[in-house]
């Protein structure tokens, strides 16, 4: 039986130098269900063809069948690692169309939960990046700390991962009494672990050897490919919507936009992209501390939530700085309580498209790390 099967192969048609490897859709380090068709010449990658859609859950079709309120749970499930950040641009877009000005306290609460979620997201990103490089222990250290953030978000919203916490005009629930103190404690823990991981992983000589000078993305290519977030900033472009568009109350905080500096390796390589995330965690800590100090105590966060949302005819594109990059929602309203069309521009979707460009000529092992440094979530890529 097996003999017959072997005869079927036409050896003359095979290119003996090149081998095509199928990475994924089930592979330990594709960060989900991505399939990469890789052509290697020995160990050198000559071509990468990404095949998406293994998690295409028909998000946009669902949005057309749901009321505006019911869409929020589905938006959570898009980029499930940073659900809070996802909900924000959607809610902002509706508030813009409805012309609602949300109370101060809501704005600050939104900033705090989003930045907490940003830290949690970057912790996963850096942790899985380390895991791709073979370091397991930093992965668990970051997950241990992430748990403290998740506990705060769970106490606020009632869910651990998919919060459904933002509402048009407010938030689903108010803060609890010990909230501020707990957030500050978590910030201290995040900083402590970050300092530890710096020595354990980021500045480890093997890790530097693996990631520096690997997957170099120049700023021109990054902009042309529409990259955003840490991927773009790792290439040295200081593009951050929190500063450039200063939505919500971000203009009241003092924070820096970390960019890849080429301290190790060169600007735009995997190490620098990763380092931007580590630095962003620190900046998020700073923002959280300032927001906690400035946040007004009184005020009802649920006061302005409309019972039934009916959006006037029109369309709007709203984007906000997700941990992965610019997350945009293009909403077309037809005047009813359900959108005519809702298109989500996922940051991961656009960032991932740069993979074939930057992974050519590196080794197969590097491809895994380049993919890890892009930090994708397939829920957002495939939607």
């Amino acid at each position, binding site marked *: 039986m097996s003999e017959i099967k072997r005869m079927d192969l036409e050896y003359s048609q095979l290119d003996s130098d090149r081998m095509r490897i199928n990475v994924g859709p089930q592979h330990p380090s594709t960060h989900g269900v991505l399939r990469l068709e890789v052509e290697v010449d020995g160990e050198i990658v000559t071509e990468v063809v990404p095949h998406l859609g293994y998690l295409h859950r028909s998000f946009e079709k669902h949005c057309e069948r749901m009321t505006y309120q019911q869409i*929020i749970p589905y938006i*959570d499930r898009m980029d499930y690692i940073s659900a809070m950040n996802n909900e924000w641009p959607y809610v902002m877009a509706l508030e813009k169309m409805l012309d609602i000005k949300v109370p101060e306290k809501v704005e600050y609460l939104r900033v705090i939960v989003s930045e907490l979620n940003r830290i949690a997201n970057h912790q996963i990103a850096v942790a899985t990046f380390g895991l791709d490089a073979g370091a397991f222990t930093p992965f668990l250290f970051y997950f241990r700390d992430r748990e403290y953030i998740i506990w705060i978000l769970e106490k606020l*919203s*009632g869910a651990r991962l998919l919060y459904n916490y933002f509402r048009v005009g407010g938030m689903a629930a108010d803060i609890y009494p010990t909230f501020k103190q707990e957030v500050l404690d978590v910030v201290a823990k995040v900083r402590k672990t970050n300092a530890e991981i710096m020595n*354990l992983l980021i500045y480890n*000589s*093997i890790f530097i050897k693996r990631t520096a000078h690997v997957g170099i993305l120049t700023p021109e290519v990054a902009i042309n490919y529409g990259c955003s977030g840490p991927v773009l900033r790792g290439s040295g472009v200081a593009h951050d919507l929190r500063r450039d568009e200063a939505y919500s109350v971000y203009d009241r905080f003092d924070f820096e936009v970390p960019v890849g500096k080429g301290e190790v390796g060169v600007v735009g390589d995997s190490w620098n992209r990763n380092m931007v995330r580590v630095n962003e965690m620190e900046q998020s800590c700073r923002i959280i501390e300032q927001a906690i100090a400035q946040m007004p105590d009184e005020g009802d966060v649920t006061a302005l939530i409309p019972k039934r949302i009916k959006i006037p005819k029109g369309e709007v594109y709203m984007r906000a700085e997700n941990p992965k990059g610019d997350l945009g929602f293009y909403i077309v309203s037809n005047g009813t309580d359900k959108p005519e069309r809702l298109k989500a521009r996922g940051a991961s979707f656009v960032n991932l498209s740069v993979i074939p460009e930057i992974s050519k000529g590196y080794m197969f092992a590097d491809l895994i790390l380049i993919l890890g440094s892009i930090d994708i979530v397939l829920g957002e890529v495939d939607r």
Partner: protein
Amino acid sequence: MIQYLKNIWSGLSSTFTGMRITSGHLFVKKVTIQYPDQRFPIPSNARNRLVLTPERCTGCNLCVVACPVNCILLETVRVVPDDPHQELYENGQPRKMWITRYEMDFAKCCFCGLCQAACPSDAINHTTDFEYSAYDRADLYYKYQTLTPEQAAEKERLLAEFKAKDKPAVAKKTEKAADHPVTAAPDKAATQTLTDKEPAPEA
């Protein structure tokens, strides 16, 4: 040459730094919560299993409308005034609607909490109970109605009789009740598996 020696040194020293850090964690207190024996306190607003309190449910259909995934099935029958079997809500008001069917499919629920927020009488609630995994998908299909099917049929018969007596007043309302989005009960044939496997032991 100096670069070469430097590389060797940085390799060795960063290895030792890493080993120092990891060895530091060897003897600290472990953070693990050993689940079945120890439990982490779950916040009271955590969204886990949904529980309906039938004594509070008025059958207003708001939870069904709010549910994004349509995993709630609700069928009601109006209480006729001359029914010998009358019931009170928990707050002492007389019941207006019989809940002939209230079924939830936890295999579909997305635990978003929108039904809980929509409920005006606080009848449907997320609890902190999460331990209800099942060997069979049909076990995740929960039925909350208190009436038996025979009772439900009886109520429907009573209502039909009442309607026949007093047609114009009631016709409008029953129409509305029949208009509910209805979810399909899980198909028994669909849950059957392809490979023949050992049947699960009786729990």
